[in-house]
């Protein structure tokens, strides 16, 4: 299949998936206990107040009508207005998304190379002591949720060693990079899990390649181990690394919701966490939709990149 056809096809599938996700997001916010009325008029409003608010919000209309109104406006770029504060949801996202993108990019920049290095070191000599050590470590890292990782890092680096600030207070009038130390803890917290996942995938790929006949032939021909790895094993094992990139983006987005809130980092994840707490449904729906779109886009791009890099996948 020609690449452009593949791109168009995958793009169409992504849009279908996004439409499906929008249904899931809308339905999920519909079934949240406590409706939007409470978020607007407060929990103590009278029945009359609640009824009035319900009318004003259009909640008396059929759910399908409301979904199509919301989705239709979203397609046109209008994600609605936040209940709390009354700001357009698009503005809130535009404020916070760059901070999260920065955090995610730094986490990816740390996680993928680290994952590759650890994966190659472990897979180069499968079953040896180093492989067992690194494989166990990466498995452990995958099993620990981000909030635990973040807590441990906080205790060690901020409270114990006093190397970095415990809270990510962005300088007023500036950005996160104006005080680079504030991103250390959230970036590390976000990077560990995808790094470990990448390491395991790459380790398996490297180990598989190491046992292939052509590597064995090369080894019998006297090629040094380091050269073997660099010239023959690594290029053939990077396919999984590319795929890991897409998965890592998803993991980082999920982790950011917890990690940003924990460190009070002003990103879109913390905003989503806060919006869920206040039942600010337009904000929840808008952010969730944007995060879903980013995840789908990253999967699409990595898929295309993987096919470009690996001729076998193009056939």
């Amino acid at each position: 299949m020609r690449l452009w056809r593949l791109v168009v096809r995958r793009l169409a599938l992504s849009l279908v998936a996004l439409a499906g996700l929008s249904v899931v997001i809308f339905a999920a916010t519909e079934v949240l206990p406590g409706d939007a009325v409470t978020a607007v008029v407060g929990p103590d409003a009278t029945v009359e107040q609640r009824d009035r608010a319900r009318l004003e919000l259009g909640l008396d209309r059929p759910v399908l009508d409301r979904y199509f109104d919301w989705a239709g406006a979203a397609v046109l770029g209008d994600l609605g207005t936040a209940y709390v504060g009354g700001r357009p949801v698009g503005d809130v996202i535009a404020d916070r998304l760059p901070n999260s993108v920065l955090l995610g990019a730094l986490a990816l920049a740390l996680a993928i190379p680290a994952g590759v290095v650890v994966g190659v070191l472990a897979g180069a000599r499968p079953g040896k002591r180093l492989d067992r050590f690194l494989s166990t470590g990466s498995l452990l890292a995958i099993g620990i949720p981000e909030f635990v990782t973040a807590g441990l890092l906080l205790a060690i680096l901020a409270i114990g060693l006093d190397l970095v600030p415990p809270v990510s207070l962005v300088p007023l009038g500036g950005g996160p990079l104006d005080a680079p130390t504030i991103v250390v803890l959230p970036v590390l917290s976000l990077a560990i899990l995808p790094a470990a996942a990448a390491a395991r995938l790459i380790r398996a790929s490297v180990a598989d390649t190491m046992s292939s006949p052509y590597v064995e032939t090369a080894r019998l021909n006297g090629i040094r181990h380091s050269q073997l790895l660099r010239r023959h094993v690594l290029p053939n094992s990077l396919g999984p690394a590319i795929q890991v990139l897409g998965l890592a983006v998803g993991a980082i987005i999920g982790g950011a919701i917890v990690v940003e809130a924990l460190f009070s980092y002003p990103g879109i994840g913390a905003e989503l966490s806060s919006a869920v707490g206040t039942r600010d449904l337009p904000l929840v729906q808008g952010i969730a939709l944007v995060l879903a779109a980013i995840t789908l886009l990253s999967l699409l791009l990595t898929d295309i990149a993987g096919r470009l890099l690996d001729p076998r996948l193009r056939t």
Partner: protein
Amino acid sequence: MFFTWWSAATVVRMRLVPNNEGQMDRRAFLKNSLAAATVTALAPLIAACSGDGSGSTTTVGTGATTGANATGGTIRAAFVGAGASETLNVFSGGSALDFVRARAMHATLGNLDPNSPDGVAYGVLEGIEAADDLSAYTLRVRPGVVFSDGSPLGAADVIHSLRLAANDATGSFALFVADFDLEAATVDDDLTLTLPTRQPIADGPTILCVGTNFVFKDGTTDFTEDMPTSGPFLLREFDPGVGTRFERNPDFYGLKLGGGPFVDELELRSIPDEAARLNALLDGQVDLANDLSPLQGQELAGDDRIVVEATQPPYLSALYFQMNMAIPPFDDVRVRQAFRLACDRQAMLDTVLFGRGEIGNDMFSLGFPDYAADIPQRPFDPDEARRLLAEAGAEGMSVPLLTGPESPGMVEAATLYAQQLGDVGVDVTINELPAGQLFADFETYLSSPLVSGFTTAAPALLYYQVVFLGGGPFGLGWNRPDIDELVFAARGTADAEERAALAVQAQRALFDEGNAIVPVYKPVITGRVPGLTGIAEGLFEQYPSFSEARLA
């Protein structure tokens, strides 16, 4: 009805921490202000009871000359914020930080001051006089108060501001102007206005000076960074969800009266997570962290780096349980009394609040002069509880207890109470909802037989009116027109003693036959560095304006 049911209820039933702690704290501050309102109305009694009439509060009108006491420096303080949804429009802001920001930015008509002879410390007002028949109030604006654009602040600005508050969609701010007919309000001269009341009320000054009535320039419709303001600090930078930077207002009216602001700059930081607020304080990233949990307060005890301050009665939050009288067997007063007798309040105070708080007596007005303090403390009597349950045929009953982490200590208190009820043979199932859901799921809350809640103590009259009047939904089945009449009569009574006596009667009925279990009262806990002082002197210290704060 002086206060409409809905708006009053909005004030009293609010969450301190959203949600994930922290959300809708405006409700909390309004609740506090409501509580404070009546305290102030009865301030002379408080002062008399304290034995120290001088108090510690600095009010305008005394002190040094303008700026003579300035200490300079920058105060950095952390509050529960609302993320990117934070707004300069205090009427639609949903967090503590939104309100604190407004307090730094805008002057108010006045603030409650229990140590002041008339119960209030006037702000831009110089005085308030009531008509003999309580049909109107005359407000005199302090001369020489100016906005940041240099224009004078006058009577027209006050009326416009009160009308803005009256149009507050949530009703939280409208509550404090609901008793006045603002359409009929008149400007008598540049500095004098008349506010007719909708029906005679005795506590007009208290309501107007509750601390939530900010003053905006006449014609203000938008709340922007460059809007004219008259508060102790001038806004210099506002980044929603991150923070706000202020500079000292050199033209603030308080300076001419010998007060603050004393510091050069003020930075308010938005930190929703309570652990992060504490970490920021301990690390020196901020000088003050508002709204810490009881556990955090306990952990900080003995730490020389931090001063922990807890509000004292009556500025406490009642952690309570409420039985739904519409659902059997709670329609039987014997069962209700048994549930109250089964509660070991001392154990709850010691384990849930680490001793930092007060024991409750199933009433909501601890520390207020009209609190029925003469009613003996209900004992912990599990044997009598078992007897009453057996007599009512309810021994061995099962009941779900609906609770959630809406305020620190709520779930812990519910868990302990469930154990205590288990000791008298009641099988309790804890139904813990996620943060932010307890009050959001309106129907579930009102249809549950036994629920958790919290509220700041409010005087009996106001609390009754908010929760129980007319069989309101949050009364959970309480509907007593005879007691309602008592409350109505009291609200329109100018004589303080007569008013308090009527309030006690109503309260006694709730104590004997009501459906609330109030085991403990919890303070608002703040941590600060030792060099930061003068927070309380700015009044309304749960949500400080920093107008009198100094930094060593």
